[in-house]
Structures are given as structure tokens and as C-alpha cells.
């Protein structure tokens, strides 16, 4: 295969003459200080694999206990801790970060970028993930492993039922890692939107990049609901708030709503990147373009959209009422359509192709089968009378393991075999790979398929032992045997990595004759990723490079593309190649509104959209609880007039910062500093006003633990105040730097613009909060 430089010698001029980067410290310290997306990606992959091993070990201990009726290997307390930590670890610390690790390594390469949009933020995300995981696991040496299940239903998590710190380790460990995950979501979106090779249009992006982008949006919009719920739980447990305390008027079901508003999109955070992997692997090993490129993309977007509308199907047994049941049943059935479409796209891609059953392909094909089984049992739950019968049985356990293990984890294995050569420069051994696949496939099927039967027989999940009912013992033994077969499969996988790293076959740049840009550089790629990039004329730039005539024919529907395949016509016309765009920043023909924004401003806007969901959850909590005063003070006792006065200061500060920005744009640094200081003064007046309001309320005995109303009031206004303080610190830093001589001659304006945007957002939130909390009391007064 000819190299990019050989085919396009003029592009060899893009080779960086000199790479400037401070010399990284060598050895172990390098890993602590790296901001290279590839190294951070590898750190994610290795850390996730370690947590996966821990979670797998926990599962094996449970399976030993369940291998026969009335076993006494584990007691009920230990069993509760093990299933809680197994689920929590697999979801938050293994499968999700494993997929994000691949996104970290591969997405910038697939779009021809040199790094993530925010490399240091990327490092921060990783360390928060690792430290959050360590904090969670510190619960073991502390002697209080969490034991409330991975969705930690209230009121079981409240003080009277959970007196020790087990819940708090779960809560704060996940809170730490969730902050990192949200920042990763922001980073992924900004990277794909802003750092894409200028010649690559959105519908020329590889599907894995598309699915990582969609996953980024899922993360930033659903995780804040969990964060808000965790903050409420923390306040319940440490400050005596009443959010989920039923005895004090709180609502335990509200936890379920918040949790599953996060929890169901989380399933797609685990599934969509795996679908992206399958959509990369199957075309390459079928030697065909993906069948229905745009359909695959839009079905992914549709899955994400509907993912936000189905959360209460986890709650059918709560008693939502017929309207709720019908809505969430119907929306759940609808979501099966775009997921089904993907299955047919993958089958259509393989149809008539020259299929090579490498290990990566075997795992990808198995995803299709496993996900079909997991998807169909998912549709069963959409029919809520069936859900009422099967809820909390092993039928549910079988269903979600077919999705998370059968689809997501198999996707991770496929990704490992597919991208290992790119990451390490060496191929994994295919013979060991086949052993790896068949052991995992047979073991997984043996483990999870019989669970459907024992579930329909009525065996409940999360119970540490069971009576010797007909069939239960033998099926459970089979399940346990399957789990140990999987263990052997995982050991073969680890052995394969070990031997391949030492003496695996050299991979070369593109061992699979794959189509996308990550294969257009060396294996492993250099620090700066690319010497040269081929022109982008479709979603398979490397295939186009190899087959210039065929590529044109393909776009006409006569070549490798299938008739009617939307992939062909979507490809950019040859004239709009990356050659021209690469040399001219303005060469992007389809300028979108966000393309005029700087990277920091775009990132700030993305983060703000995440904050909207966080405040949304707090505002919903306030609306839910504003009338639940337990006979104590209510919203009508708030001092609207005084609050209105200091609110004016905050609203005015949006104007002053705009004035400051205008002065800065005109080069008037002194004027900028004056308006900036005015903004800080106005913001401080607001905060002092709020502190005074709290002081007066506390003097009157209106404390956070008085009622659900006071809990929601202090949490909502307090978190807004916290954001104002953060904004003030940021403004003070900007002011300090400007006095130190920064921002002269239009330098680093993006920092000022980003902080100003954040400040406007904080103001806007207060418009809503002030209306809902204070002005509402005047209506009908």
C-alpha cells in the first residue's frame, strides 16, 4: 500500500520541521504529568481493565455462593456488598471509562487532530476517575463497603437505615469520578466540533467518532441529574435535609426519577461507543462501506434522544399510574426501532462482502447476536404487565448482562483486537484471540442465557441464597460454570496482551487495510500524531487513496458502494478536499455558527449546557417540595423585596461585564479593568445580600433540616451562590492578570470571553431561581 506522502508529495511539506514541547520527564513521572491524549487513553484502558478484574472477581465470589442452594460461602452482608460493588465498578469504573479510553486515543486520530481540545482538562478527568475509584474502594480497608445496590434506592440510603459510612463512600467516590466524566464529555464534544481536519465534513466522520460525540452529549446532559441527586443525598445524611426522608415529607421515588434520568442514558453511554466500534470493524473486515452511513448516524442520535424519554420504565412497579405506564411503555418500544435499524445496517454491510473472521470481527459479529437477544428482552419490559411479573428477577439480570456484557464488553474486546496494533505497534496473537473469543462467548452464553429461565421461574435477584426448588440448583450451577469459563477467557486475553507486547508481530501503519485516518500514521503514532494527512473525499479516506478511480465510481453508485447507499452521495466533491482547506483556515465551505467560536468559548458553552441540567434537577426538587413545609415557614415567608434589591446588583453585573468586554475590544485596558472591578463589586453585593438573608432566616430558626421546603430552598439558592463565588474568583483572577499586564493587544481574549459567558449564565440562572422561589409567592398573594 502506498503511503500518504508517496501519493501526495506536496503534503509531505506539512511535516513539522521541528517539534516544540517541553521535554517530558522520563519514567514513571511522565505518566503523572502527561497531557498527551494517547498516553491518557492508555491510562484509561489499563485502569479500567484493573477495575474490570476487581468487579469480575466480585462476580465470581457471588457465583461460588450461588452455585448450590443454601450455600454458606458468603453471608448476606458480604453478598450485598459484593453485588453493589460489582455493579458500581463495572458501570462507572470499568466499561464506561474503558470505552472513553478508546475515544481518548482514537477520536483525535480519526479526525486528524493533534490532541484533545483541552489536553490538561483531559488529564484532570483521568485523575478524577482514578481517585474517585480509589475513594470508592477505600471503603474496603475502612471496613464499610457500600451495600445498597448500584442504584442506591432511598430511603434505604438514609441515616436510620444506613448508619455507617458505606453509602457515603459510594456517594462521594462516584461524585468525584462523575465530575471527571462530565469534563471528558465536554472535551470530546469540543474536540470533534473544533479540532476536526478542516476538510472533513460531519458526514465524513468515522462512525466511532460520531458515536463518541453523541456519547459526549449523553454524558454532559444525564450525569448532572445523578450529581444533583448525590448532593441531595449528601445533604440528607450530613446536614439533616429531608429530600428523600419519607418520614419528614420527603419523596423516596424522587431519587428514582433522578437516578434513572441519569441511569437509562447511561446504558447508551455504555452501548453507543460499542456500536461505534462495531461500525468500524464490520466494514473493514467485510471490505465494504457501512451500509446506510447516515442511517447509522441518525439512529445513534435517535437512540440518544429517546434515551432521555424512557427513564421511568425502570419504575413500573412503583405505581406511576396508567398514563405514566403507557407513555414510558410506548417510548421504550419506539427506542427499539433505531436500535433495530443498526442491526440491519451491520447485516447489510456484511451481505456480499469478503468477510475475514479475525478475532475483532468475531467479537463484533457476536455483538449483533447478543444485542439482539438483550434488545428483545428489553422490549419485553416495555410491556409493563410483563415487567410487573419479572421485575427484580434474574430475567432482568439476564437482560442487562446481554446488553452490557454481550454488547458493550464484546465491543471493548473487538476494539482491543482492532486498535491494539495502532496503540502498541504490535498485533495481538490471532490464535490466542480465537481461544479468547470462544471461551468468552461460550462462557458468557452459559452464564447469562440460563438466567432467563431461572428468572421466569421466579428466582429473585440480590438474594444471597435460595431454596432447593426444582431446577434452580442445576441452572445456577451451570451459570457458575459459565462464569469460570469466562474467567479462563479473560486470562487468555491478558496472556495474549502480555506475549504480544513482548514478541507480537509488528503491525505496520495499517495492518487491516482499514479506511479511517488513525491508520494514516505510524503505529504507535508520534507525539504530534500525523506527518501528513490524505485528502478527505468520503468517510473512507484511506480506501479512496488506494482506489482513486473506484472511489469516484463508488460515489456514482457503481463501485464498492451499494445502490442507494447514502454514504456515496454524502461524500464531498473532489474539489473540496482537505488539501485546500488545510492551507487556508477559511477553507471550510460549510461554516457553522460554532465554527466562529474559539475553543475555550465553545468548551464553556458546552459545559454551561451541562450545568443547565444540574440546576434543572435542583429547580424541579424545589417545585416538588415548595409546599411541603411540615407546618413550618414556607415560600411566602421569604423576604422578596430585600432579595429583589440585591438581585438587581447581580443583574446589573451582566451589563458591566459587557461594557468591560467592549472596552477591551477597543484596546482600552484601563476601561476594561474599571468595569471588571464594578462587576466584582456588584457580584459581592449579591453574595453579601444572600449571606445576610441566610443569617436572618437561621436566627428565626429556619434551618435546612426543618422541612423538604427548606432543604430544597437552601440547596437551590446555596448552589447558585456557590456558582457566583466561583464566578467571582474567576473574575478576580482575570482582573489580577490584567493588572499584571495580560490581555494587551488582543491576547488571550478567549479567557475573558469564557469567564464573561459563565457569569451571564450565573445571572440567567438567578432570573429563573428568583422567579420560581420569590416571585411565585406574589402570584395569588
Amino acid at each position, binding site marked *: 500500500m502506498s503511503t500518504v506522502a508517496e501519493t501526495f508529495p506536496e503534503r509531505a511539506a*506539512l511535516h*513539522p*520541521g*521541528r*517539534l*516544540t*514541547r*517541553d521535554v*517530558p*520527564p522520563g519514567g514513571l513521572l*511522565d505518566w*503523572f*504529568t*502527561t*497531557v*498527551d491524549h494517547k498516553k491518557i487513553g492508555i491510562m484509561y484502558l489499563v485502569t479500567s481493565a484493573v477495575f474490570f478484574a476487581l468487579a469480575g472477581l466480585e462476580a465470581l465470589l457471588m457465583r461460588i455462593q450461588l452455585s448450590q442452594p443454601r450455600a454458606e460461602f458468603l453471608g448476606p452482608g458480604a453478598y450485598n456488598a459484593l453485588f453493589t460493588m460489582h455493579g458500581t465498578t463495572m458501570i462507572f469504573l470499568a466499561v464506561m471509562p474503558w470505552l472513553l479510553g478508546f475515544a481518548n486515543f482514537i477520536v483525535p486520530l480519526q479526525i486528524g*487532530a*493533534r*490532541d484533545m*481540545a*483541552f*489536553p*490538561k*482538562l483531559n*488529564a*484532570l478527568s*483521568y*485523575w*478524577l476517575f*482514578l*481517585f474517585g475509584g*480509589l*475513594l470508592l474502594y*477505600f471503603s474496603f480497608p475502612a471496613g464499610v463497603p457500600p451495600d445498597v445496590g448500584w442504584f442506591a434506592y432511598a430511603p434505604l440510603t438514609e441515616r436510620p437505615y444506613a448508619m455507617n*459510612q458505606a453509602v*457515603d*463512600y459510594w456517594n*462521594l*467516590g462516584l461524585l*468525584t469520578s462523575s*465530575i471527571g466524566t462530565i469534563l471528558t464529555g465536554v472535551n470530546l464534544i469540543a474536540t470533534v466540533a*473544533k*479540532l476536526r481536519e*478542516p476538510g472533513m465534513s460531519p458526514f465524513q466522520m468515522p462512525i466511532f467518532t460520531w458515536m463518541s460525540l453523541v456519547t459526549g452529549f449523553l454524558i454532559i446532559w444525564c450525569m448532572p441529574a445523578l450529581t444533583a441527586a448525590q448532593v441531595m443525598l*449528601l445533604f440528607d445524611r*450530613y446536614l439533616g435535609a429531608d429530600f428523600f426522608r419519607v418520614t419528614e415529607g420527603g419523596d423516596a421515588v424522587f431519587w428514582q426519577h433522578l437516578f434513572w434520568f441519569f441511569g437509562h442514558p447511561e446504558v447508551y453511554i455504555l452501548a453507543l461507543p460499542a456500536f461505534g466500534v462495531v461500525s468500524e470493524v464490520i466494514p473493514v473486515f467485510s471490505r465494504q462501506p457501512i451500509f446506510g452511513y447516515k442511517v447509522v448516524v441518525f439512529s445513534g442520535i435517535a437512540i440518544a434522544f429517546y434515551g432521555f424519554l424512557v427513564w421511568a420504565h425502570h419504575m413500573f412497579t412503583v405505581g406511576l399510574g396508567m398514563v405514566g405506564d403507557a407513555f414510558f411503555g410506548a417510548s421504550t418500544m419506539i427506542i427499539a426501532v433505531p436500535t433495530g435499524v443498526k442491526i440491519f445496517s451491520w447485516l447489510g454491510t456484511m451481505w456480499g462482502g469478503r468477510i475475514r473472521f479475525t478475532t475483532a470481527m468475531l467479537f463484533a459479529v457476536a455483538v449483533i447476536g447478543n444485542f439482539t437477544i438483550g434488545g428483545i428482552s428489553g422490549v419485553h419490559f416495555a410491556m409493563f404487565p410483563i415487567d410487573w411479573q419479572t421485575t427484580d428477577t434474574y430475567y432482568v439480570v439476564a437482560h442487562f448482562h446481554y446488553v452490557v456484557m454481550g454488547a458493550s464488553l464484546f465491543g471493548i474486546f473487538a476494539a482491543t483486537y482492532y486498535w491494539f496494533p495502532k496503540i502498541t505497534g504490535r498485533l495481538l496473537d490471532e490464535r490466542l484471540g480465537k481461544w479468547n473469543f470462544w471461551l468468552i462467548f461460550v462462557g458468557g452464553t452459559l452464564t447469562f442465557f440460563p438466567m432467563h429461565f431461572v428468572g421466569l421461574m421466579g428466582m429473585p435477584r440480590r438474594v444471597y441464597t435460595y431454596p432447593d426448588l426444582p431446577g434452580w440448583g442445576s441452572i445456577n450451577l451451570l451459570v457458575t460454570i459459565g462464569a469460570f469459563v469466562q474467567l479462563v477467557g479473560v486470562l487468555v486475553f491478558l496472556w495474549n496482551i502480555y506475549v504480544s507486547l513482548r514478541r507480537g508481530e509488528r503491525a505496520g501503519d495499517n495492518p487491516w487495510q482499514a479506511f479511517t485516518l488513525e491508520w494514516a500514521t505510524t503505529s504507535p503514532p508520534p*507525539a*504530534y500524531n500525523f506527518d501528513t494527512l490524505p485528502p478527505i473525499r468520503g468517510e473512507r479516506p484511506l480506501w479512496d487513496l488506494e482506489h482513486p478511480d473506484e472511489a469516484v465510481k463508488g460515489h456514482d453508485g457503481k463501485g464498492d458502494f451499494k445502490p442507494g447507499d447514502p454514504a456515496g452521495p454524502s461524500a464531498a466533491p473532489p474539489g473540496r478536499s482537505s488539501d485546500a482547506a*488545510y*492551507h487556508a*483556515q477559511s477553507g471550510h465551505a460549510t461554516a457553522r455558527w460554532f465554527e466562529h467560536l*474559539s*475553543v475555550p468559548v465553545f*468548551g464553556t458553552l458546552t459545559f454551561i449546557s451541562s450545568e443547565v441540567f444540574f440546576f434543572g434537577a435542583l429547580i424541579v426538587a424545589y417545585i416538588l417540595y415548595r409546599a411541603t413545609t411540615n407546618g413550618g415557614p414556607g415560600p411566602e415567608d421569604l423576604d422578596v423585596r430585600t432579595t429583589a434589591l440585591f438581585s438587581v446588583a447581580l443583574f446589573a453585573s451582566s451589563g458591566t461585564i459587557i461594557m468591560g468586554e467592549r472596552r477591551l475590544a477597543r484596546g482600552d485596558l484601563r476601561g476594561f479593568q474599571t468595569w471588571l472591578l464594578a462587576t466584582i463589586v456588584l457580584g459581592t453585593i449579591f453574595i453579601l445580600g444572600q449571606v445576610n438573608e441566610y443569617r436572618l432566616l437561621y436566627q428565626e430558626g429556619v434551618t435546612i433540616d426543618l422541612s423538604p421546603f427548606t432543604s430544597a430552598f437552601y440547596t437551590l439558592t446555596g448552589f447558585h451562590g456557590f456558582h457566583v463565588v466561583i464566578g467571582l474568583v474567576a473574575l478576580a*483572577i482575570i482582573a489580577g*492578570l490584567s493588572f499584571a499586564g*495580560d490581555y494587551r493587544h488582543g491576547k*488571550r481574549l*478567549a*479567557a475573558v470571553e469564557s469567564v464573561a459567558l459563565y457569569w451571564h449564565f450565573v445571572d440567567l440562572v438567578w432570573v429563573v431561581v428568583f422567579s420560581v422561589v420569590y416571585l411565585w409567592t406574589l402570584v395569588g398573594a
Partner: protein
Amino acid sequence: MTVDTERARHDQPPEHGEIHLPSPSAWPCVCAGGITLVFFGILTSFVFSVVGVLLIALALAGWIGELRHE
């Protein structure tokens, strides 16, 4: 940092044939350690939380210092 990354990507060919990649930094790790200690302090002793806040402040100062010189 980010502006430089963007420039490295888009302003091709790079000035004087240079590509500037963001330099290694320990501050993200220190900052994450600080945030974690704040939460760990809730579980154990407020001393950890205070140390955590100080680490966050130190990391931000170092981080911003690096941004200004890249």
C-alpha cells in the same frame, strides 16, 4: 494551551515549521488530588478537606501560570 493546540492544528504550514504541543504538567493530577481530598475530608476529618482546598488553589495557580507562558 488550547489556543496553541488549535493553532497547531489549523495554521498550517506552521510558522518556521514548528508545531507546539502542550507541555507536560503535574497540576491536573494535583488538582484532582485536591478535589478528592475535599470529599475524603467529609468522610474522615476536615483537615483533609482544608488540605484539599489548598491543593486546588495551588494547582490552579500553577495551571494558570503555565497557560500564561505557553
